[in-house]
């Protein structure tokens, strides 16, 4: 069965510094990978997704993620964070054969310090 691990539950970072949020997944078949962001008291919003092709995926708000099949990872990065990036970030995986079923990780809380 598929599963998602986010190694850091909380990540504090100073404004304008780079950040990496780590995600590892477990699956025996090919997968789609996603990153979602959740701002306080809101639903989740899709940041970016990996379906196939280039392993470097660019998303909204300056975020990007790199798929590494050998390490079963999909880490999220941003070269310079802003206060407005403070939010909860969820990595998610969907097995291609599972007909839309998406499993979410436990989330990483990103706090940007002014």
């Amino acid at each position, binding site marked *: 069965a598929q599963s998602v691990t986010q190694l850091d539950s909380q990540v504090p970072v100073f404004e304008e510094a780079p950040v990496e949020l780590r995600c590892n997944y477990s699956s025996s078949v090919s997968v789609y990978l996603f990153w979602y962001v959740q701002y306080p008291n809101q*639903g989740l919003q899709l940041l970016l997704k990996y379906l196939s092709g280039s392993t470097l995926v660019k998303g909204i708000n300056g975020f990007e993620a790199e798929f590494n099949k050998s390490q079963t990872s999909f880490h999220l990065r941003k070269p310079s964070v802003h206060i407005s990036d403070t939010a909860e970030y969820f990595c998610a995986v969907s097995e291609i054969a599972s007909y839309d079923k998406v499993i979410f990780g436990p989330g990483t809380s990103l706090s940007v310090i002014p």
Partner: protein
Amino acid sequence: EAGVAQSPRYKIIEKRQSVAFWCNPISGHATLYWYQQILGQGPKLLIQFQNNGVVDDSQLPKDRFSAERLKGVDSTLKIQPAKLEDSAVYLCASSFPGGWYGYTFGSGTRLTVV
């Protein structure tokens, strides 16, 4: 386009009472999901509909939870009777068929059971 609409935004009930949540997905999205998000955790899938049929309800506590999607559009999720551990945010999401699209989430209903 209009987003996924959910109501109510907040609900406080006593244990053993019943409660219902409503969701209106994005027009044209055939697939609808209900997720439960307990504080500090990632969303957990409760039930998935494809049009008005159930695709996956393996994680739905069927002794107390029920959901329906009449006419393949709006959906309601009901809890009867509620327990303290049901306190969570209930998120509705919709998508086109096919896991590669990613989901659009509503803002959720925050349920507190006292």
